[in-house]
C-alpha cells in the first residue's frame, strides 16, 4: 500500500497562466467552480424568470432553498440580518453545490482544497470584525474579549481565553469543511481500492460499504454547508448584537 491516499486531491494545470508571478492557471478545480457557478445561476434565474402564483417544480425548489436560508438568518440574526441575505445565500448555495457535485465520480470537490475554505472563513470573520467596529466603534474590541458579567478580577484570565477563542473561529470554520470533504473522499477511495484488491470473493463487502458511505457523504455534504452557513450567521450576529443573549456554538 504505497499509494498516496491524497493522490486524487492533487491538481494538474490544464492551461498554465502566470500573471506577474501570480499563478492563475486553469485546472480541474477552477473548471468545477465555473460549473457550480453556472448551475446555481441557471437554477435561480430560470426559477425566477417565469414566476407563477402556483409554482412549478423548478420554482418550488428555488422557493424551498430561499425559505430555508431565510429561516437560518431569522433564527440566528433576527430581522436585521436580512440585509446579509445575498451574501449568506451565495455562500450556502456555492458550498452546497460544490459538496454535492464533488460526489459525482470523475469530478473534483472544490471544498476539499483548504485555500478555498480558508478564503471563505477569513472573509466571513473579517467582515464580522469590520461590521462590529463600524456599528459599535472602538468599544467593540473589549466587548468581544470580555464576556458580559465578568468580575473584574477574572478579566486578566478571560482576555487571553477569549482572544484564543476568537482566533480559533476562522481556523475551525475553514478546517471543518476542508477536513470533512477530504476525509469523506479519502474513505471512499480506500474502500474502492479494497474492492478492487479484494477480488470477487471478498470484494463485495467493501463495495457494499462504499455504497452506504456514499449515502452518508450526501448527508455530510448538506450538513457541512448548513453548519458553515449557521456559523457565519452566528458570527455576523455577534457583531450585530454585542453581548447578545444567544449562546454561540464554537
Amino acid at each position: 500500500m504505497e499509494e498516496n491516499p491524497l493522490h486524487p486531491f492533487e491538481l494538474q494545470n490544464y492551461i498554465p497562466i502566470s500573471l506577474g508571478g501570480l499563478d492563475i492557471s486553469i485546472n480541474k478545480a477552477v473548471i468545477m467552480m465555473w460549473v457550480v457557478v453556472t448551475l446555481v445561476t441557471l437554477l435561480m434565474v430560470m426559477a425566477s424568470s417565469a414566476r407563477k402564483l402556483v409554482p412549478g417544480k423548478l420554482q418550488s425548489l428555488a422557493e424551498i432553498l430561499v425559505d430555508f436560508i431565510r429561516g437560518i438568518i431569522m433564527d440566528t440574526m433576527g430581522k436585521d440580518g436580512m440585509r446579509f441575505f445575498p451574501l449568506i445565500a451565495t455562500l450556502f448555495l456555492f458550498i452546497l453545490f460544490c459538496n454535492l457535485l464533488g460526489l459525482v465520480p470523475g469530478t473534483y470537490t472544490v471544498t476539499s482544497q483548504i485555500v478555498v475554505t480558508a478564503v471563505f472563513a477569513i472573509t466571513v470573520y473579517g467582515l464580522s470584525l469590520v461590521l462590529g467596529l463600524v456599528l459599535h466603534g472602538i468599544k467593540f474590541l473589549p466587548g468581544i474579549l470580555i464576556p458580559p458579567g465578568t468580575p473584574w478580577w477574572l478579566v486578566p484570565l478571560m482576555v487571553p481565553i477569549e482572544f484564543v477563542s476568537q482566533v480559533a473561529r476562522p481556523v475551525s470554520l475553514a478546517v471543518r469543511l476542508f477536513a470533512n470533504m477530504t476525509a469523506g473522499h479519502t474513505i471512499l477511495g480506500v474502500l474502492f481500492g479494497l474492492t478492487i484488491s479484494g477480488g470477487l470473493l471478498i470484494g463485495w463487502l467493501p463495495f457494499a460499504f462504499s455504497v452506504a458511505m456514499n449515502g452518508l457523504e450526501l448527508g455530510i455534504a448538506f450538513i457541512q454547508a448548513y453548519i458553515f452557513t449557521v456559523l457565519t450567521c452566528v458570527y455576523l450576529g455577534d457583531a450585530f448584537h454585542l453581548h447578545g443573549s444567544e449562546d454561540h456554538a464554537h
Partner: protein
Amino acid sequence: MDSAAAALLGMGLAAAGFAGAGVGIGFIFGKMIEAVARQPEAEGRVGKYMWIGFALVEAIALYGLVIAFIIMGLRK
C-alpha cells in the same frame, strides 16, 4: 528509532483522537433517543440540533486527520 518510523507512529497516534469523537457521537445519539422516547412530539426540533452536534463532533475527530496529514507532509 529513525525519523521515518517516528512519523508513521505519530500519524497512527493522531488517529487515537477518534476515540473521543466516538464517545461523543454515541452520547449525542443516545441522548437523542432518550429525549424522543420521553417526548416523541419534539423529534423534529431535537433532530435538527442533533445533526448539528453530530457534524461538529465529527469535525473534531477530523482535526486529528489534519494533524496526520501535516506529519505526512513533513516526512520527506
